Every structure is written in structure tokens, then in C-alpha cells.
């Protein structure tokens, strides 16, 4: 097998057996990026020198006979909304095109501290707002299965980097489906952990009560290993859950006999592409054959999830993004008359259309006289959605659905129809509103394009999700197929 499609586990064995060095792996991936970057648009910044230094440090450790951490020497790509000290962090926005953070996100400290080799910062929808990565304020990203199609978003660059072997694993962020949906559209594994499992410190906020950092990988075992690396309490994040985290790798290789799986009918009916539905039905048959007990169930408030999301997320965003004003960092219009003019010109030019749309939506939702009707109502809906899940999990261990209602769509197809674009997150958004974990695993193909299956679980039930995902992966070979690019 080609090096760039090997799993982290295989690479680790080869490094330990001195068949290859971390430096050689790193150079191979940098060559791969060099070859594919133009075509895919996955990276905003390639950090070759840093990567080689980090790989060199791992090789020294190996040479000294020390045992290396599980992911040491593994090339990783990082979404460009995670702050990296000394390395520009743009959020794919003109606003932050030249912003170099003086500090690193907790998750960056954690992966670097475990010897991972960061090869670059990946492209995304500007400030993580979008479902196609077409909202990147810098340049577009192509789906490796068909470059006329979108890769999904907002973590499109991370998904493409992993799908094309420009990185072994990647970090993304998921506010309404931004890890799972591109993972689905690009044919890789992507997980949104329970809210509070992974620190948000250093993740540039879009919607604080929904944002969560998570891993993308080409197989479930690598995903589990990545989750283990990034999960943990962080005293710098007040919303970080206290206590120890599970050892996620122990949940792999367990059978799923007798496991109760619910399939919400709202996620399999209207609006779901028939090709996608039939792939998921096939996947459910596999799970059934593995001994799981599958039943249809209902999440009755699902239809309100998208509107509630677009009130809560945009309200928080309107406040979170207020800091980009041109005063002390970021883009500043140089032809301003006074301070108000500076705000208006800097923000009008620094932000793209979708970001401005969401800031306006959120500002409106919070305005005097509208708060109760919109924002407060949305919070109540959020509670109802969470209660739907609580009830479902009294009966089922996990819930299963398509990750996305369709396979990858054409570039430009939904750009002028934001509502249509918003509906591409219809099956993922509720998971963020409820704060529960969700994973997308390759479940098959429809029209030659990958389809992802979403598995949703109880809060902090990542282990069970990985167990089901791994059992499914062991019985299928969808994840082995890679795009020809």
C-alpha cells in the first residue's frame, strides 16, 4: 500500500521497526501536498519547516530507544480556526489573513505534545460558516471524488486532506455538522465529540454553545486515537467537562450483539436523497447481521432544529465576531474618516457575504423587542430537542441516520439559495443543539460518491459510538476505497 494511505497504526509499527523514519514520512507527505495542493485547495498554510523539525524530534526519541506516544510522527492537518502560536491562523477570512496568534489552542498543545507532526492549516468556510467550503474567503476547495463538486464544510480542507492522503488525520470543528458532513461527502471518518469533552480554548469561536473540536481520519481506530489525544479537562475553558476521559481504543474490537439501535424516521424520510437512503438501509442490514437490534423511532421536534440553530448560532456569532473591528489586529480599512467609519469599512470589506448575513441575522434576533420571539424561543426549542434525545436514549444505545441528506453537490449549486444550503445540515444540527456526540463513517456509495452514516450517542458515550463504527468498518470495505486524483 502507498505510504500516504497507510493508517497511523501501520506507520507507527514501521517507525518502531526502523523501516521508515518520521522524517521520511513527513517528507513524503509534504511531497504529496506539493503535488495535490493546487488541485484540491485543501491547505491555506503548509508548515513544512515546522513539520520537519517536529518529525526530527520524534526520530531522535526513537533513536534514543524511548517508547514514543501512539501518534508520534503522524502527519496531521489542522483546521485554520485553531490558533497556532507563531503560525498565521486565518479562519479563511480576509479579516484574519495576516493574523499570527501569540498562543496555541489547547488541542494544538496536546497533539504537538504527543509528537504529532503538523503539516499545515486547512481551508474552510470563512469562520466555519457554511456547508460546502465555498465560503472560504481565500480560495475554494474541491471534492477529490469529482473536482466539480464541493467537499462539504465547513471543515472541507481537513476532510479533503485526509481523503487524499495529504495528512493521516486532521482536526476540524463542528458547530452544526462541520466535521461530519464533509467527512461524509469525502468518504472519511469524522467525529463531533460531546460538548465539553474537548477544550475549545484557542478555537476561534463561531457559536460558543455549539462549537466542538473533533478528529477526522481514514479509519475508526485512528479516529479513536486522535480523540484520546485531544480529549481532556482544560482549566482555561469553563465549559470543559471535569474528570478523566475514557481510553477510547478499548472500545474497538468489541461486538455489538444485542446493542439497541434506533433509527429516527424524521432523518430517513422527506428531503433525504433516495440513493443515500438506500445506502443507509444497506448499512443497517450490516448492523443487523452483526446482532444489533434495530428499530424505527422518532425525534418529534427535529423539524424545528434548523430554524432554532440559525437563531442561536447566529446570535452568538454576532457577538463573537464583534471583536474583528480593525482596532488592534486583523484587517483595517486605511481610508476611514473616523472610528465608526473604520469599523464599517473594515467589517464590510473584511468579512464575506455569508458571515455578514449571519451577523445580521443574529443581531436582529437579539434586538430589543425581538429577543423573546426569536432567541428565547429558540432556546426553548433547543431544550425540547434535547429531551427528544434523552427519551430516545432511555431505549436505545445509539441512533443511526444518514450524515447528509445528499452526496456531494455541484459547486455553485446552492450558493444563491442559503436556505437550501442550510438544509444540508438537517441531520447533523440536532446533535450540536443537544450537545451529544456523533460520528460519520463511510457507509457506501451512491452514484459513485461516498455516503456517510451518522451514529449518535449519549453524552460522553463516544466509546459506544466508536465500538459500533468499528464493528461496521470491520464488516465493510467502504473506507478502503480512495478517490483517484
Amino acid at each position, binding site marked *: 500500500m502507498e505510504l500516504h494511505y497507510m493508517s497511523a497504526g501501520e506507520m507507527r509499527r514501521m517507525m518502531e521497526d526502523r523501516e521508515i523514519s518520521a522524517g521520511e514520512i513527513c517528507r513524503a507527505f509534504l511531497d504529496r501536498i506539493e503535488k495535490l495542493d493546487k488541485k484540491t485547495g485543501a491547505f491555506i498554510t503548509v508548515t513544512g519547516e515546522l513539520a520537519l523539525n517536529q518529525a526530527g524530534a520524534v526520530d531522535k526519541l526513537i533513536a534514543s530507544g524511548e517508547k514514543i506516544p501512539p501518534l508520534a510522527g503522524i502527519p496531521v492537518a489542522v483546521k485554520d*480556526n*485553531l*490558533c497556532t502560536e507563531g503560525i498565521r*491562523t486565518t*479562519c479563511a477570512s480576509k479579516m*484574519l489573513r495576516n*493574523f499570527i*496568534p*501569540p*498562543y496555541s*489552542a489547547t488541542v494544538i498543545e496536546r497533539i504537538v505534545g504527543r509528537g504529532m507532526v503538523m503539516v499545515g492549516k486547512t481551508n474552510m468556510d470563512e469562520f466555519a460558516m457554511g456547508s460546502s467550503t465555498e465560503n472560504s474567503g481565500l480560495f475554494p476547495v474541491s471534492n477529490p471524488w469529482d473536482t466539480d463538486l464541493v467537499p462539504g464544510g465547513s471543515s472541507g480542507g481537513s476532510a479533503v486532506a485526509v481523503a487524499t492522503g495529504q495528512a493521516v488525520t486532521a482536526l476540524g470543528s463542528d458547530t452544526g455538522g462541520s466535521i461530519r458532513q464533509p467527512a461524509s461527502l469525502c468518504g472519511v471518518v469524522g467525529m463531533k465529540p460531546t460538548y465539553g469533552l474537548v477544550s*475549545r*480554548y*484557542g*478555537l*476561534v*469561536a463561531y*457559536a*460558543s*454553545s455549539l462549537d466542538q473540536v473533533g478528529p477526522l481520519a481514514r479509519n475508526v481506530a485512528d479516529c479513536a486515537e486522535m480523540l484520546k489525544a485531544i480529549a481532556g479537562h482544560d*482549566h*482555561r*475553558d*469553563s*465549559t470543559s467537562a471535569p474528570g478523566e476521559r475514557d481510553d477510547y481504543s478499548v472500545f474497538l474490537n468489541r461486538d455489538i450483539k444485542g446493542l439497541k439501535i434506533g433509527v429516527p424516521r424524521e432523518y430517513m424520510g422527506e428531503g433525504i436523497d433516495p440513493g443515500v437512503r438506500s445506502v443507509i438501509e444497506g448499512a443497517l442490514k450490516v448492523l443487523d447481521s452483526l446482532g444489533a437490534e434495530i428499530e424505527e423511532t422518532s425525534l418529534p421536534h427535529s423539524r424545528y432544529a434548523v430554524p432554532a440553530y440559525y437563531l442561536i448560532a447566529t*446570535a*452568538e456569532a*454576532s*457577538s463573537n465576531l*464583534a*471583536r474583528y*473591528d480593525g*482596532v*488592534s*489586529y486583523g484587517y483595517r480599512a486605511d481610508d476611514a474618516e473616523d*472610528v*465608526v467609519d473604520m*469599523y464599517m469599512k473594515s467589517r464590510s470589506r473584511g468579512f464575506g457575504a455569508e458571515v455578514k448575513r449571519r451577523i445580521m441575522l443574529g*443581531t436582529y434576533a*437579539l*434586538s*430589543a423587542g425581538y*429577543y423573546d420571539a426569536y*432567541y428565547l424561543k429558540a432556546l426553548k426549542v433547543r431544550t425540547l430537542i434535547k429531551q427528544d434525545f434523552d427519551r430516545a436514549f432511555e431505549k436505545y444505545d445509539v441512533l443511526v441516520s444518514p450524515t447528509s441528506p445528499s452526496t456531494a453537490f455541484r459547486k455553485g449549486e446552492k450558493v444563491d439559495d442559503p436556505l437550501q444550503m442550510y438544509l444540508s445540515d438537517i441531520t447533523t444540527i440536532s446533535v450540536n443543539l443537544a450537545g451529544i456526540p456523533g460520528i460519520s463513517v463511510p457507509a457506501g456509495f451512491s452514484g459513485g460518491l461516498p455516503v456517510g452514516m451518522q451514529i449518535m450517542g449519549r453524552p460522553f458515550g463516544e466509546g459506544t459510538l466508536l465500538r459500533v463504527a468499528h464493528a461496521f468498518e470491520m464488516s465493510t470495505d467502504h473506507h478502503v476505497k480512495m478517490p483517484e486524483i
Partner: protein
Amino acid sequence: MVRYETVIGLEVHVELKTETKIFCPSSTVFGGGPNTHVCPVCLGLPGVLPVMNKKVLEYAVRVSLALNCKIAEYSKFDRKNYYYPDLPKNYQISQYDLPLAEHGHLDIHVDGRVKRVGITRVHMEEDAGKLVHQGTIATTPYSLVDYNRTGVPLVEIVSDPELRSPEEARAYLEKLLAIIQYTGVSDCKMEEGSLRCDANVSVRPEGGAELGTKTEIKNMNSFKALQRALRYEAERQIRVLEEGGRIVQETRTWDEARGVTLSMRSKEQAHDYRYLPDPDLAPMVIHKSWVDEIKASLPELPDRRRDRYIRDLGISGYDASVITSTREMADYFEECLASHPNAKAVANWIMGDLSRLLNAENMEISRCRISPPQLAAMLRLIDGGTISGKIAKVVFEEMFSSGKDPEVIVREKGLVQITDEGAISAAVERALAENPKVVQDFRDGKDKALGFLVGQVMRLTRGKANPEMVNRLIRDRIKSEDEG
């Protein structure tokens, strides 16, 4: 003619003197080079998150309890959204609908009566930075921003609209400042901006039930400014009404130099702060047992102390009020009493000579070079007859400037009181001989003449003669002459 009543409510911001800021580990020390007490969190850089400093909560609970407030069991932070260059996130983390504490009160003494003023609420928030203009804000070509103050913890204390005059407002602010100082959680220095006051002012026909349209007055940087601004604003509003006009709800700024309030922005231009619960901070659940612990640790507050001084020490209400107006002064007073239990004498010296000298040097009593035991020692020297009250004033000034013990000063300067009758008699002889006319005046019943003669004797003894002995000896001497 309609008589008007002024209605005032105050909003007071107080900086809490924790070591670190409210949501990050940066220092709160005042001063320092621009932008030296900052970190990514208080600079509001992309991706940072606030983490509540528990000490701030403790201090805010302390203040609230001292103001007789009810502490919320459940409280949360909200974001107040507005754009200003001194606010790096363009929202301030504050508290909106679930403040830390409500329903408190404090008592003020005005015109010899006690008035209870309600406290609507106490809440916590972060301070903003400071803009440095080149000249005035209106003409500056650019402004610099210093974020050292950004994120310094504040409590905002809002009074009910129950103050009825600028004098009551001032008394309220003075009392509030005293109480907070007693709790030890703030320096309350108006000149350093660690205590800032805004006022809501309206007027209405006396005895009216409904409140008039209010204006909000900002930029009052001293007690005097507060009183002047409120007086001006109340008179302005009455004038507008009497001329048949209407009060516009607006924010006005006090122009200290011109002695007027000026319109800043009207209600139509007012901010819509678009409050929302801060999703980065978990709500606070405040346990009663913890609140009780803090309550138990509160010091004796000014009113209790004042009453105790009047009751147990027998000093006047006025003296007790002055002495207890700051905790430092009251503590100093009590430390003096520990070694010299004459409360009236100690109070007189603190309120008289000591206050005068401190004011002249603009010094706080905590930095005074005369220690309480030294003041007590000086009083003992007076009581023991070693020095006269008059000499004591000289000794006291020397103590104030040098910090030396009174006994040392008396010895070094030879200021021991002359109580030797022979020595005083000699001076009396000389004074009488030099002033026969005055002696005659005394004989003619002019009491003033005695004072002059005593003064002469004191001059001859360089103030050291025991005044009572001088008095007695002059009378005895003239009397014996008359009889002889």
C-alpha cells in the same frame, strides 16, 4: 407656583482589588507601562475564553452583604454588546437579568435625621481599557488604547431612586464608599477611577407619585462634582419645565470647567445592548453556607461602630461619624484608646491637629508617621503635666514630620514643662514689673489683662511654664501686693 422635588438614583462602579483580573491571570495593579498587564484573554484575541476568578465573586458577595442585600442562589453572566475601541471584544461581560444581589439598603445621616436608601442591585462585570487622546476627544487625530485596565473586576451598585437632593446623593456616596472600604475589597479612589459614579436625575411637582423623565449624568469625578452637577441638572430641568418645555430622556456629561451638563446622546440614539447569556461561562450556583461564612467574616461596619462609640465611649454623634468615616481612622482611634482610654481627648487630636496635618500633605492616615502608641504617649505627657497642651502642639508637629517618640522630642528640645514654683515666680515678678499698666487694669477688674500677663510669662519661659501655676501665681502675687 409649583414647588419641585428632585429624584436621584446613583449607579456606582467600584473596582475590586483582587490580585488578578476577573477572567484571566493578568495583574490588576494600577499604573505600569501601557499594555503591560495584558494577556490573550483580556486582549480579546480570537479563540480565547474567560474563566471566572472566584475571589471576585467572594469580594462581590462581601460588598453585597455589607449593603444588606439578598444574595442570589443562582446567577449568571451576560454579554452587553456595543462597539467602542477601549472594549477589545466589543462586548462587556456583565450581568443582566440575574444579578448577584438585590434588595439591599444603607442609612445616611442628613440634617440630623437618618434616612434609609434602598439598593436595587449589585452585579459583577469587567472594566474596559483606557483611550489616550492627543488633546481633546473631538480634535485628536488618533487615539491610543491602553488595555491594562481591561478585565479589572468591577461591581456596579445601583440605588433606588430615593435620593431627594444633591446633599443626600453625596451623603449616600460617602456612606457607600465608607462601607466598601470597611469590607476591604476596594480602595475606592475616585481620582484613580477605582470608584466611579453616574446619576439618574428627574424632577416632579413636590409630592407627585409619578417619576418625571430622567436624564443620566456622567463624568462626575469627585464628591464636589457630583453635588454641583446634580444641583445644576435639577435646576436646568425645572427651568425647562417652567418655560413650558419637556425633558428629553438622554445621557449628559458634566463639564467641570464650565459647570454645566451637556447632552451626549438621546434615547433615540441610545444603544441596544442586545444582552445574551455568555455561553463561555457556566452559571454560578452560590451556596448559602459559603455566603454565611463570608457574612461571619465581615468587620464591624461604620454604623455599628458609630453607635458603639456614642454609647460606650460617650463621644458626640458628630465626632463618632467623622471618626468612623474611614475604617483606617476608626482603627487608628481604637489603637490609641488601647494605651490611652480618654476617648474625647483622642478624638479631638485626631479630628483636629492630625487631620489638619494629613490634609495639608494630602496623606492618608494609614501612612501617618505618628503611630497610635506615640499619640497615646503624648497624651500621657500632657496628663502627667510633663508638657502643656500648647507645647503639645509643637511636639505633635515634630512627631508628624520626624516620626520620633514624643519623649525624645521633649528631651531633645528641652520642652519639659516648668513646674518649679521658684522659676515661674521669677518670671511672674519680671512680667508684672514690666507691665504696671496692665497690672492696674487687672486690679480694675479687666479679665483680659490676666490673659495678657499669662502670655508674657509663657513668652519668658518659652511656653514651658505650667499654665495653671502661672495663673495661680499671678493672682497670688497681685493679691499679696494689695494686701501688703
